[in-house]
């Protein structure tokens, strides 16, 4: 857009106008809560959810970078703008999917999703420990309810309880660490943290904070809740709860590490060890899974591993820190889009891998999308996932971590094996008619297909146009 047109419209959104996306999402939240009394009921809530989060995406994209809010509690950087936009777009596509799906009662789901999205869009910009804590919780808490959305199913409740208990525990550990950090740095803002003198206690405190965040990111060895929780839940709920909060938490992790790299030596080593551990545990555990949700949970552990490699490089400081910071964001976005796509397909077809059997005959278009998602996660060019991986590897090699890259590459091949099992099921599996009612396939609708197709298309387009995507994130 031309500069004069932009300024005429009062754009980009500066000052408190930067809260526009959150207000829009609040509209969706309340509409969802009171959908019973509003026109359209469940479908109305989904439609409003879609429209509001799509507008919120536009709003996020138009937020003026550099905006400071609430005395510096929020700082809208270029990368925060990028992540918030992606989060809102994913939320919009997810709402669109619910509008087109046959899952029935969607109103609370929309309200919860909107709440989580508000939290996530704030979390990517938060630069204050207290605020950070609040918005991270806001982003992840609705997930517990979504996981247990079918409250009459025992598995779902068990899953939700597991997820809830682990999250509460990790939150407490995080808070515990934060309390020390506040004491040590004599302030709650990131600016104060940056000035914090190095000390063993500081390392301990920061370690606690990271531990809490890693558990939410499902990095090994704090990943064990994820497969059980996801398997017990509806795939469409997992598609949201395992994707949106993770983008926000990744940003929080890399931002904190970036801020504190100087005051907490050795963290990068701890993070690297956990990254390697996550890659091994995730990749090899995923090989054995017969349930798409469990597989994607372990695949999430692997992505956490890749993201933590980048986070560790951020911790090394120096010239690669900034590049590693961006590499982490790109990687988590690439894996988020693909994960959401796979799980939404699983929401149509059923949670087990064998439920995908014969998809290529039932719905060739969705089968094609599934191929795009899996190839992107494997890292086959020219899809977005490939460039995100390549970028990460280049940063790692620039930082002198050749061994890590070689190792990560081998893991990528192991991952190819289980991702391809999804493709194999979809294209070669013999379709079995399943009469089990909770696995009965919901009818396809145009809107759900559009939503999944848009996710697949975005991976192709963002891959070929990697340059503009990256430029926009860097503000270059």
């Amino acid at each position, binding site marked *: 857009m031309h500069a004069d047109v932009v300024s005429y419209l009062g754009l980009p959104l500066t000052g408190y106008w930067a809260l526009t996306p959150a207000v829009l999402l609040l509209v969706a939240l309340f509409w969802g809560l009171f959908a019973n009394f509003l026109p359209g009921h469940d479908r109305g809530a989904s439609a409003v959810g879609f429209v509001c989060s799509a507008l919120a995406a536009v709003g996020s994209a138009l937020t003026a970078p550099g905006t400071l809010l609430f005395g510096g509690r929020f700082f809208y950087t270029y990368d925060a703008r990028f992540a918030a936009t992606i989060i809102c777009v994913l939320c919009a596509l997810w709402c669109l999917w619910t509008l087109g799906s046959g899952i029935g009662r969607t109103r609370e789901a929309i309200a919860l999703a909107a709440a989580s999205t508000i939290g996530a869009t704030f979390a990517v910009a938060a630069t204050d420990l207290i605020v950070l804590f609040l918005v991270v919780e806001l982003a992840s808490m609705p997930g517990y309810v979504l996981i247990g959305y079918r409250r009459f199913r025992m598995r779902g409740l068990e899953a939700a309880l597991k997820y809830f208990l682990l999250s509460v525990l990790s939150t407490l550990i995080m808070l515990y660490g934060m309390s020390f950090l506040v004491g040590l740095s004599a302030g709650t803002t990131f600016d104060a943290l940056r000035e914090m003198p190095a000390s063993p206690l500081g390392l301990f405190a920061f370690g606690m904070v990271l531990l809490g965040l890693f558990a939410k990111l499902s990095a090994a060895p704090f990943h064990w809740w994820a497969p059980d929780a996801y398997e017990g839940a509806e795939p469409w709920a997992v598609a949201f709860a395992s994707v949106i909060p993770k983008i926000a938490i990744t940003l929080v992790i890399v931002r904190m590490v970036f801020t504190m790299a100087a005051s907490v030596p050795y963290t990068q080593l701890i993070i690297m060890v956990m990254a390697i551990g996550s890659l091994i545990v995730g990749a090899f555990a995923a090989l054995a899974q017969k349930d798409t949700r469990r597989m994607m949970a372990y695949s999430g552990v692997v992505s956490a591993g890749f993201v933590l490699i980048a986070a560790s490089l951020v911790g090394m400081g120096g010239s690669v820190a900034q590049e590693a910071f961006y590499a982490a964001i790109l990687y988590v976005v690439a894996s988020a889009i693909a994960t959401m796509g796979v799980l939404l397909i699983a929401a149509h077809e059923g949670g087990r891998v064998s439920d995908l059997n014969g998809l290529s005959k039932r719905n060739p278009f969705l089968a094609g999308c599934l191929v795009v998602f899996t*190839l992107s996660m494997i890292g086959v060019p020219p899809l977005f996932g490939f460039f995100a991986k390549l970028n990460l590897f*280049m940063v790692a090699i620039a930082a002198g971590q*050749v061994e890590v890259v*070689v190792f990560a590459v081998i893991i990528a091949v192991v991952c190819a*094996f289980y991702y391809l099992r999804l493709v194999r099921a979809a294209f070669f599996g013999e379709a079995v008619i399943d009469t089990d009612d909770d696995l009965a396939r919901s009818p396809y609708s145009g809107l759900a297909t559009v939503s999944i197709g848009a996710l697949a298309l975005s991976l192709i387009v963002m891959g070929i146009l990697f*340059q503009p995507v990256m430029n926009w994130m860097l503000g270059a």
Partner: protein
Amino acid sequence: MLSLIVFLPLVGVLLCALLPQRFDFAAKWIALVTTVANFGLAAWMFIAYGRGEGILLEKQILWIPQIDVYYHLGLDGLSFPLLVLSTLLFVLAVVASWKIDIKPRLYFAMLLLLSLGLNGVFSALDLVLFYVFWEIVLVPMFFLISQWGGLRRRYAAMKFFLYTFLGSVFMLVGIVALHHFTGSFNMIELRELAPAFFAGDGSLWSLQWWIFLAFFLGLAVKVPIFPLHTWLPDAHVQAPTAASVLLAGVMLKMGTYAFLRISVPILPDAFQTWQLTLGILGVVSILYGAIVAFAQTDIKKLVAYSSVSHMGFAMVGIASGTAVGFNAAMAVNISHGLTTSMLFFLVGMIYERTKTLKIAELSGIAAQMPRFAGFFCFAAFASMGLPLLSGFVGEFLAVLAAWQSPVLPPIITILTGIGILCGGAYMLWLLQRSIFGNPSALVEGKKDLNLREISVLTPLAILVVVIGVYWHSLLQYTDPFALNLVKLIGG
């Protein structure tokens, strides 16, 4: 112009994908028109510009500045003949797949996507772009094998994908490492930048040696070099005819092509350290392929193992490090592309008729199907390296190069020569068992080749004779490249 050649198949892919189901029959026409246009364009460019010096039809645009990736295409004496061969084989593959009736739209879309990937591999001059095309090739081939293949197609397709993917990710590490040290992905610039950076140190365990190893792993799987060849028999045998042809005819060439394009000129010192290893592995591939081919009872598997053997000659040629050797490798590339394609086409044709690939059940074809027998004998003779046919050019040059090479010991020359002999032996034995003798029950009463099938085989046969009789027709393109390469590695 080159971009047009590379991306022309994309038009066909999109048309096939958007075609409504009731126009299934149109897919093959779309594919035929696209591939013919693509071949026509490539051949025309070849005739018009093929003899030029340096990089032809070069095009360079900045694609992703942050990670320094260019959209950079160009051709030379190494890649131009391969590009033309590839586009030609795609035309023939489409004609040979005329009777595909299971999901024809997807089939032809995949075939065209494969064509796009291969065009790109042979044209890309930026390492990342090269890798992009290199991987694009995997996907359609995975589907071609797994959807239209034989009984064990799923196993073969998975094995094919994982093997080649494992190899190529190591190559990716090599690519990123090269960029880290030299700051460039440009394959042409790297010929000067990389040796300058490594300052002539390519000894064992040196940095350059490791990068060569990374590329070697990626390329050796593709060539394939013993012991990384085990995906090949499965993939070739299970693949549908057209895919086998393209696997053997074009995709195996990606490996030797990349050795000559990347490993040798960009990492010349490590190449010298590796030379002997490459030579030994090449000879082992030749003999191993030949001996295993002897033992086969399945005609398609025999042809597949003969590919391992033939590509070994290319490796020996490369390992020799001489201009003759590089010419040999390029000649084997082209000639093997022609003869093995013929053999796989013929095997596919006999399979369509008899539904068997067992050599024991195929005796006496000559009596029943004289035209088929004629073509089969011709292809077999060309493959075993009979003088005046194209197979002889590369294999003779490879033996000569091994002899001339200052690095390879004479025993390699001797064993390479024995390899040619073995090639003759298993092919003749195959002819004796399948073509001659009394017609078996399965062969009895089967129709001979029809006009469509003959039109697939004839162009290949003509090229085999032209190259075999008049070597210069091929070597005039490859020789400048080979001489330049020798200059680059300081030989």
